[in-house]
């Protein structure tokens, strides 16, 4: 679905350039883990707004429910019990798409226009163009997209691009009761995040940090992590990057290689014709074949 108020910056498997007449602010969601109480209101709001209804599952001895992200669960509260510097911490992380500036999923996608990146930074899946190959899943350094078996399409958080395109905040942001979630320009969100670090350091979280990993060009979902030196304790990769093969797949070298290959095949075909003439259809009895 094209959103008229959001310009597309990048399309998967396409070479056409996006429009540049309008300039838009880059947006971001700020997740302040130090204010999050794991109430799952964001998870419920996501299901409400996006008309998602998972099955009633089972409890596997965890607070994390459902057990994992899936096509009906685009955001998920994950709970981790960690002993850090001698004290117990119950780390609660709102998992979901980080909307990378350098999105591995988009780079990996071979279906033209199935994944787009808007100029405001949102990375959106256009499922009607999705061919269900799952390359985006292997291309994502955060393990976010999920394949739906029933329709062989891949789904993930849209950052409520439909809401954002008409000037609303994402549904999760609107619902968060403690102000752990904020939405605005990326610049403002980073400023707010930095401001929180002072308070956290004063409370003894000496290594509090903002998570906006450079390996993927920064993200449009940024975190304030009280234990900023240990993002993996929250289930976040320490130094995420787009896998080298995916990077090559979308690079100029790969494109040139593809063009050369195609050209070589065509040339070889012509040469073959010149030397051997048209292929002979086998005789009726086929005995010569």
């Amino acid at each position, binding site marked *: 679905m094209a959103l008229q108020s959001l310009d597309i910056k990048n399309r998967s498997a396409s070479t056409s350039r996006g429009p540049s007449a309008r300039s838009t602010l880059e947006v971001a969601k700020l997740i302040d883990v130090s204010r999050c*109480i794991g109430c799952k209101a964001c998870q419920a709001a996501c299901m409400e707004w996006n008309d998602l209804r998972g099955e009633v599952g089972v409890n596997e001895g965890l607070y994390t429910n459902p057990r994992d992200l899936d096509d009906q669960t685009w955001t998920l509260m994950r709970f981790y*019990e960690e002993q850090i510097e001698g004290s117990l911490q119950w780390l609660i992380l709102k998992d979901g798409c980080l909307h990378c500036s350098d999105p591995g999923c988009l780079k990996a996608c071979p279906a033209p226009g199935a994944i787009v990146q808007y100029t405001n930074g949102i990375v959106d899946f256009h499922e009607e163009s999705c061919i269900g190959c799952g390359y985006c899943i292997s291309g994502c350094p955060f393990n976010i997209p999920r394949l739906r078996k029933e329709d062989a399409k891949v789904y993930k958080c849209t950052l409520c691009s439909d809401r954002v395109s008409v000037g609303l905040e994402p549904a999760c942001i609107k619902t968060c*009761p403690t102000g*752990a979630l904020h939405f605005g320009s990326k610049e403002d969100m980073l400023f707010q995040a930095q401001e929180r670090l002072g308070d956290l350091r*004063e409370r003894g979280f000496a290594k509090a940090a903002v998570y906006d990993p450079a390996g993927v060009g920064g993200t449009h979902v940024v975190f304030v992590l009280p234990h900023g030196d240990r993002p993996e304790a929250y289930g976040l990769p320490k130094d995420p990057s787009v896998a080298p093969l995916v990077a090559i797949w979308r690079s100029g070298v790969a494109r040139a290689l593809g063009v050369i290959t195609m050209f070589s095949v065509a040339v070889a075909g012509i040469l073959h014709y010149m030397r051997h003439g048209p292929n002979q259809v086998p005789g009726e009895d086929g005995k010569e074949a």
Partner: protein
Amino acid sequence: MTNNWVDIKNADVVLVMGGNPAEAHPCGFKWVIEAKIKNKARLIVVDPRFTRTAAVADTFAQIRPGTDIAFLGGVIHYLLEKDKIQHEYVKAYTNAPFLLKEDYQFQEGLFSGYNAEKRSYDKASWGYELDKDGFAKVDMTMQDPRCVLQQMKRHYARYTPEVVEGVTGVKKDLFLKICETIATTAAPDRVMTNLYALGWTQHSVGSQNIRAMAMIQLLLGNMGMPGGGLNALRGHSNIQGLTDLGVMSHLLPGYIGLPTEAEPDLKTFLEKRTPKALRPNQMNFPQNTPKWFISLLKAWYGKAATKENDFGYDWLPKNDKPYDIMAAFELMYQGKMNGYFCQGFNPLASVPDKAKLLDGLSKLKYLVTIDPLPTETSSFWKNVGELNPVDPSKIQTEVFRLPSTCFAEEDGSLTNSGRWLQWHYKGAEPPGEARNDVDIMADLFLRVRALYAKEGGALPEPILNLSWPHLIPSQPKPEEIAREFNGKALADIPDPKDPTKFLAREGEQLATFAHLQADGTTACGNWIYCGSWTQAGNMMGRRDASDPTGLGVTPGWAWNWPVNRRILYNRASADPSGKPWDPKRKYLAWTGTKWAGADVPDMRPDAAPSEGVGPFIMTPEGVARLWAPAMTDGPFPEHYEPFETPLEKNPLSPKEPRALSNPAARVYKGDRERFGTAKEFPYVATTYRLTEHFHFWSKHTRISAVLQPEMFVEIGEGLAKEKGIRQGDQVLVRSKRGQIKAKALITKRIQTLQIQGKSVHTVGIPIHWGFEGLTKAGPLVNTLTPFVGDANIQTPEFKAFLVNVEKA
């Protein structure tokens, strides 16, 4: 709440104990976060489990369930021993200087006057020493060994940090660190708030848990202060409204006690219920009880209530014994109750000892449930395998299910924890045959009245004389009912200060309860709600969010009882001379001619500080009570073990077996035999809510069911290892009263505690499952819980009992 939700943001220290607001009150918890971020507040959590609230706390201490008084008594001991109290406040605003009678005694867990047979106290020795005028004697130096402060020092001297550690399991160092933080708020410019909920009330010592905290807040000078107070977080959006309106077996609206058989006539009732001042010059506001009570009778019985017939006093029921919910089910169990109306209530899930409840419900002739959803109570007769192992062929109870609307399908007001009455409007039409509760009751009433009118009956007057002034009698409008609660003038009410003026003309809505009269010229359905719907209209519907002082006081938002006052006892936010204790928190001050500030003063507006009128206007003392002889189970909170305890002796009174558990708590015949011992049931269990669900309602909604689908119990890693239980295993949890199955959630958040030299494991049991709804069917947790409650108000002891756990 003495204060309100928004006011939490003014706190310097937030102590969460006896509650888990991040989990059970996530929206209100935003104000704790606000205090942390804007006010650099420190958040302390003391709980049997590391909860979602603990996840964002600065300090957490794990306490053994049912030992809060030992902890809080230890804090009192610390504050008194280290002299970290706000002296001027304590001296002027509490009964610390009051002298006690000579014959008061306390020994080995028992206060003087104990009667073991009746399990109750004769409180004669608990009173103050009175002078010849009937006023309490005081020693303003607070040095007299018989003054409350000195008695308190003596009483809590036993609660040393070592004793606290041995009883509660909280390590001494951690306990002292918490004490230090709490003690910082003894300074006039630092304030602590306390947030609690059913983690304190659901104990056999529930009322005393809260009392102990109130005493700490008084010693620190935190009552009446913005950012302070003692704040009960109510468990339903309108449970505050329920108690305000007296929907309890011993109360009338506005906390007026229901008459008992010992009060056969109006005169006796009013004499007994109207206190006399215990110190000179005090407001003793309950002296107005006759005005409130007679206005209530006028609202109920209208013209039929006359001075000659005691305003219809004879038509009120007179309690002969308690009829609280446990007493009601005991009567049912004994076969002494025929029918039961169950409105917006699921007692099979909410009252202890399910087997006993099933037995009781099965003996009824009829049961009426009025609820928007099918409740387990309404299906109690259904066999659901081991989840509800009954034989329907043996149950003769006739069950009527009347589908009602939910809050979003009706107009009306909700009273929140902070006493705000907020009007709301219907968001949707009710489905199917659902009718709103008022219509159902009106229909019932009109039919019963018609029967009485036709057939007479034993005592028709209470029904036939009831005033029913509704435009459509079968459909009273919420607006009509709200106006009745507020009250109106039945005649012109002259202004005593100016005979040319009137406080209200006949037929007008009253502006304040100060205008209520005891002669039948005013009618008021609930005196504390007077002012909510005045001549100016519906005050509850106001939505002006402006906060002129920045202290979180929004006088134009909704309406706050009493008289739109946002913080109770707010006179105490200023020193005796009328100057705010803290220049940063200028809440109320004496201007030279009157009291003025951010809020409606909790004081006679023209009471000059020199008059010495105390800020606690609802007590006959005029000051707050560190010593409270009104309590059933002792004037000072004392640690007693829960009725099911892992210990054989009370560590604070080891020589007195009668003081092992609350000696004044009611135990019915046969229930003691249904209590388990540590030998058979070695682990301490506690029950609680989860944020994904709301009681037994939200299991009927798909999203909540997805977010928390199946019953589980939380088990510490220590116990899991001992029992060979792994994450996600099915376990069997047994108590003396029954057993349930659930998934095991193995956690670091529950540690094994060292109590009196032995290891004690805690098992956490969330409550939300049942055999109706969209979640996986699960057991009702009250299969396990004991049938005993708080000595004062009978709230069941759901927070501390004994179980055994094994792999299923």
